[in-house]
């Protein structure tokens, strides 16, 4: 039973602590060894964070291919370009505004629910390798490598959120309106829920304030990233309305096959690859070997998602639809993202399987409501992510994560156990998770919806492409070039 100190994002915590104790006890030369060990441990931990960040950044390519492959040829340059540009747009918003908001928050203490001003005392830290944030220090010469590693990992997560709506809103979204979303997401949208959970905000404290398990737990972001992205994807798809021709005169959904199935499948493989950085590197330390369990659970959920997705869609419509196989694997990956460190492999298999079925059914459900999501982003990220958040409250096995969110029993020393309903944890943890879900689908969804509605109102002609451009394809009028030329 390993205990995680304080907050999620601590580098070199465990070893560092061991070292501190040691440093006091031993003679001079032993101190030097202990020093070297601590330094080595911390540099290796940092390496893991950087490798994780790189893998997550590469997921952008995966999203781009999945979304472009699942949409029409006439818009391929447009869809691909939104997925390309979002990386930089979200990045810029986060670099200058969002990162301080999410993980500093000293001047927003009241508003965002963060109660420890960053400039007074480190919000997130572990001795000399602390993640500190003081104003815009992460941009100046005194920015430490550790702080920048933390930034890089976090910016990559934010970009995943930003890119999810480019899927559900594809093929009918004006470029210039999209650009504003990118900046907004990086600067404001993503940081809010991130601050409330990973940034030390009130949702992580509900173990104390409301007695809910160890408070809201989301290991790598089924909720913080995927459901939050999925909520924006839903809001955007509603505001834009369905593509011309998506629904017949009878209101029945008509399929508009993606223009390049192998492209989408390649994208899914890239996502699977990057997901190991997303989940396993969220231990934020290679010295926390739980990363291996996380990696295996991630693979198990993705594999089962793909297989059960294939069987489920064959059962539902008669053929192993490639699009749904992709969605099945992705749903498995999305759902395991929150619980990956806390559940047993059998549970990972079950979570992946159920997620695939739930996401496929969600595709049907969403279409039946007249909402057009060309790539299934709402079902996979929104619904799959929501399911994943709840799974922590169901399947957490108490082996890892006890004392998460610095949750201690009244005695102040016994960490509260992180156990789901099935492991005798009762409804507390499930309650914390359900509360997070509720916040996402009310407040966070509301913000996204309000943003798109307002933007739609104040943009001349709205944020949707003129019908002609949609019909002819957005590539020439918006990007100046077709995706494919002879």
């Amino acid at each position, binding site marked *: 039973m390993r205990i995680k100190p304080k907050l999620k994002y601590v580098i070199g915590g465990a070893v560092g602590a061991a070292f501190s104790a040691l440093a006091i006890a031993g003679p001079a030369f032993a101190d030097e060894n202990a020093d070297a060990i601590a330094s080595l441990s911390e540099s290796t931990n940092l390496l893991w964070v950087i490798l994780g960040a790189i893998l997550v950044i590469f997921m952008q390519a995966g999203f781009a291919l999945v979304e472009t492959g*699942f949409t029409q040829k006439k818009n391929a340059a447009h869809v691909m370009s939104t997925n390309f540009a979002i990386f930089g747009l979200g990045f810029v918003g986060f670099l200058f505004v969002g990162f301080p908001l999410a993980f500093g928050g000293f001047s927003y203490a009241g508003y965002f629910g963060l109660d420890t001003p960053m400039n007074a005392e480190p919000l997130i830290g572990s001795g000399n390798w602390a993640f500190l944030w003081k104003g815009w220090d992460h941009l100046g010469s005194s920015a430490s490598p550790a702080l920048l590693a933390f930034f890089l990992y976090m910016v990559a997560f934010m970009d995943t959120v930003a890119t999810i709506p480019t899927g559900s809103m594809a093929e009918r979204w004006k470029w210039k309106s999209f650009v504003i979303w990118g900046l907004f997401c990086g600067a404001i949208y993503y940081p809010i829920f991130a601050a409330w959970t990973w940034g030390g905000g009130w949702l992580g404290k509900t173990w104390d304030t409301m007695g809910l398990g160890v408070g809201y737990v989301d290991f790598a972001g089924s909720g913080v990233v995927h459901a939050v992205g999925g909520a924006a994807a839903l809001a955007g798809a509603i505001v834009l309305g369905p593509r011309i021709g998506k629904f017949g005169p009878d209101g029945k959904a*008509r*399929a508009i*096959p993606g223009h390049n199935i192998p492209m989408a499948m390649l994208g899914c493989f890239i996502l699977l690859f990057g997901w190991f950085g997303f989940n396993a590197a969220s231990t934020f330390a290679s010295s926390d070997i739980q990363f291996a369990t996380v990696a295996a659970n991630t693979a198990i959920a993705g594999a089962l998602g793909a297989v059960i997705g294939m069987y489920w869609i064959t059962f539902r*419509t008669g053929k192993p*639809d490639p699009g*749904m196989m992709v969605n099945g694997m992705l749903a498995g990956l999305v759902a395991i993202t929150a619980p990956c460190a806390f559940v047993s492999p059998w549970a990972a298999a079950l979570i992946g399987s159920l997620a695939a079925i739930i996401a*496929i059914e969600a595709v*049907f459900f969403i279409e039946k409501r007249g909402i057009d999501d060309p790539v299934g982003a709402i079902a996979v990220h929104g619904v799959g992510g929501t399911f994943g958040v709840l799974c922590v409250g169901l399947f957490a096995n108490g082996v890892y994560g006890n004392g998460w969110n610095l949750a201690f029993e009244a005695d102040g020393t016994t960490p509260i156990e992180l156990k789901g309903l099935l492991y005798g944890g009762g409804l507390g943890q499930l309650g914390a998770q359900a509360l997070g879900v509720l916040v996402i689908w009310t407040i966070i969804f509301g913000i996204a919806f309000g943003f798109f509605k307002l933007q739609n109102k104040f943009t001349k002609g709205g944020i949707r492409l003129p019908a002609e451009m949609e019909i002819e394809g957005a590539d020439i009028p918006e990007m100046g070039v077709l995706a494919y030329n002879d």
Partner: protein
Amino acid sequence: MKLITAIIKPFKLDEVKDALKATGVQGITVTEVKGFGRQGGHTETYRGSEYQIDFIPKIKVELVVDDGAVDTVVEAVKAAAVSGKIGDGKIWVTDIDRLVRIRTGEEGADAI
């Protein structure tokens, strides 16, 4: 001179080409087209919704022949392209006023 146009099933192209060669035809022009006909389309589901595949890939073969050769050529195409199953396609014949070979400027039968 006549222009013979045949709509055939794609996998029959090689056989039709060989048959035409055998009758002495020296040149043809081929286009990928899509056909809609008695063969009908079919309904598939993609990501859970249905869609109609109305148009089936076909090949259009066009060749200009001398009037005298029309019957032989039409027979040759028919024989090579037939599978007996619905959707085998059509052959039609149009009259041509004039034919020019661009390279030499030859006209009429010489240009074929």
